[in-house]
């Protein structure tokens, strides 16, 4: 096991190195740079600023400078936001994480319950109804569901706030603050859960149906075990095996923010910040964020492999 992890970590370093070079070149080669978009500047001033920012240097040299600083833990200053990239991460990522973590948790819980019941009562009215609802939710774009719910729940019925993370100008602290944030995150969490639950529930339903037909389930029932125990201990555990691989892949999504949801619900997350910074060619922020996601993706994959081993002792990692 430890040999496996060492080997994987070694690969990880190589992969990240190659990925960062690729990402850096892609960003650098996208037409236009940070200066281009500012139409207030004269051509001379533009040249002067490129000199100050070092944007007139060759791409490889710029990459080398970036890499050197990054290895020293310095991801640089965001050009547009005029703040260290790490400070920005700290200000925005946790907001995204909060949304993603809660909705991922709810998505999994709901999907597992729906998947199990639907598989157990295959082709029943419940199964059919749920599957129709799931397909409907999956085929609607998230901005539509989001805007629709805002219209109904926030604007017309005034049950929930239309967006943001706290009430504007709120002085709430402590428990009142927590309550306020929960109140504000309800809508985006609902939408994210609706969007995510469909595919996962179908996945779990499918693998549950397979498992239920296995001999060992028949054996368990023949032993006279309670149906609940058969279903949730014996069947579910085996049905969840393929799903466990998905857990690791969720990791980057937890921190990556959601572009659409954050925009619609005016949520102060990293997804919006990333999109803006791409439009502005804010290289340090773009690089910092993309590399962070790359790191999380690699770690997530590793985590999946290890989890698989934990869940299924038959799997040998080499």
């Amino acid at each position, binding site marked *: 096991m430890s040999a496996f992890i060492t080997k994987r970590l070694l690969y990880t370093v190589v992969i990240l190195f190659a990925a960062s070079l690729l990402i850096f070149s892609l960003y650098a080669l996208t037409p236009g740079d940070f200066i281009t978009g500012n139409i207030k500047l004269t051509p001379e001033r533009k040249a002067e600023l490129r000199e100050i920012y070092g944007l007139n240097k060759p791409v490889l040299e710029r990459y080398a400078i970036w890499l050197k600083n990054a290895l020293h833990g310095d991801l640089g200053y965001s050009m547009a936001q005029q703040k260290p990239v790490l400070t920005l991460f700290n200000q925005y990522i946790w907001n995204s994480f909060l949304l993603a973590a809660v909705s991922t948790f709810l998505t999994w819980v709901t999907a597992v319950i729906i998947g199990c019941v639907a598989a157990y009562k295959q082709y029943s009215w419940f199964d059919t109804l749920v599957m129709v609802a799931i397909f409907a939710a999956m085929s609607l774009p998230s901005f539509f569901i989001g805007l629709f719910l805002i219209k109904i729940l926030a604007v017309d019925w005034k049950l929930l706030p239309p*967006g943001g993370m706290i009430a504007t100008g709120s002085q709430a602290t402590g428990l009142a603050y927590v309550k306020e944030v929960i109140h504000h995150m309800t809508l985006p969490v609902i939408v994210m859960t609706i969007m995510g639950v469909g595919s996962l529930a179908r996945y779990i339903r499918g693998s549950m149906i397979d498992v239920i037909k296995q001999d060992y389930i028949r054996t368990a029932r023949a032993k006279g075990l309670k149906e609940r125990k058969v279903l949730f201990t014996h069947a579910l555990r085996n049905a969840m095996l393929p799903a466990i691989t998905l857990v690791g892949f969720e990791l980057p999504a937890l921190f990556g923010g959601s572009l659409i949801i954050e925009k619609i619900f005016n949520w102060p997350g990293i997804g919006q910040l990333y999109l803006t910074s791409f439009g502005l060619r804010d290289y340090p922020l773009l690089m910092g964020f993309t590399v962070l996601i790359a790191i999380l993706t690699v770690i997530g994959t590793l985590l999946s492999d290890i989890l698989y081993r934990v869940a299924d002792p038959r799997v040998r990692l080499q």
Partner: protein
Amino acid sequence: MKKSIASLSALLIAGSLFLSACSSDKGGNSANESANTPAASPTASAPADSGVIQASDLSKLPDTAKQRTDTIIVGLTDPSGAFTPYFHQSGYDGNVSSLLYTPLVTVDNKGVPIPALAESWDISPDNLTYTFHLRKDLKFSDGSPLTADDVAFTWTLLHDKAYDGDSQVPALHVKGGEAYKEGKASSIEGIKVIDPLTVSVTLEQPNASALTTLGSDVLSKAYYGKDYKFGQLDYIKKLHEKPVGTGPYKLEKFIPGQEVRFVANEYYYKGKPKTEHFIYKTSEGDTWQFLETGEIDFASFSATQENIEKLKSLGFVNILPYTPSTYGYLQVNLEHEALKDKKVRQAIAYGLDRQSIYVDANQGAGAVANIPSSPISWAYTEEGINPYKYDPEKAKALLDEAGWKVGADGIREKDGKQLTIHYLGSKKKDTDIFIAVAKENFAELGIKFEPEVFADFNALVSKVEGGDYDLASFSTPLLTDPADGLIQFVDGEIKGYDNPKFKELYDKGLATNDLEERKQIYKELFQLANDELPVIFTNYRKTVYAYNGRIQNLDVSPFNGIAPSLPDWYLQ
């Protein structure tokens, strides 16, 4: 990551939805849209008379808004936290800093300079030396006095070689400025502190826009200059979120991505503002939902009939029509043989149905432009200006004259080459309309039309800079002085346009500070540009501001936004 890329295309669709709903198309870049010269003028809170539609039924006001008694909330797309004037990169930060700082000289609603922190100013007869006389007892928001030293420090700082903002002060050619920038002098020769209330600056060449450019915000030397060493400005970044200013409001708290909270500044030179609290709420997406639920008090929308009807039906908002101080144009590639010919450019101006594209298709939220000036500037004129009314016959005649004859397949040809227009536009509703109408217009003229749409503004600009285009849609940034709208024709920005007469007039227009004299010069310049069409002028935008009917004394300056009238706002 995979997830976010996959959602990107969907987002673009969603984004275009928002764009059409929210106030103003930004030309893709946030930095373009800002009130970049903050101000607080005594006269700016003029009666909001010109066509304000009053709220019909204030009882419809949502409870959220009713409960506020000493706070006004305005939506702002995305302030980032760099609130030091001259140093912010985003126009939204400019909006924030315009409330935190007051300039020496501001402009009224026509763009004419009026006093702010400077009580008065003298300009030497040769138009080279500007002397500013400060008001007595000015104080920064931390209570420390503001003197001529602070003004001199601000101008000096902008000449530092590490300065990376977009202030035009370093481009004014202050005497000795270049020597300071190169590190050859320890101070700037042309900047003189005469006494604590008087400071003067001498330029190497006259420039009429110097008065407002120099007469901008003042940074405290004691605060911003404490750690200053030549060539080293990084320390200022640490002060961005802790501004010490002279504006009507002080920064109370900045919550990234959510709010900028202000509290009234008791040291403001015109006295403490009437409303204690003010908040800029970050609102990236649609602002309708926040206005409708009373979460914000003020928002701007495109002046389409549909939007105005919807706003009227809300009942609790006043609606204020507004024309931003910009103009839209089609940049023409003057390095391409066909477009070098003035007649071809004029033919395009005649042959494009600009009324349909910019006014009718926008439900009236626009007007046709024919000169490089915003319609609200003091220099604006229609005298001797050719309106280039849609006239395909005239356009065809001009093309014939220019030697472009209709070929076999209906496309005009000259010397065996077809007349083709490769058009670039950014992805938004206006571009779609343009392409739809222009396609027909150009077909009628016998011009081959090849549109290309960019989702990304920087990519569009870099393609234009590379020269691979014939026409490209742009809009200017916010224009204060009439010269702002003309500089692109003399500084090399519009490649291939080199007219000595234009340059001469441009310099002449900046060589005097006499408004009437300048008006005459600009009239001549506008007529010249209108005839030569170095770019094809297209349109002016029209927007409306909708605000909570309880707010009194609200006015929006075309040049300085809400900052000038904000100190007088109060809730009824």
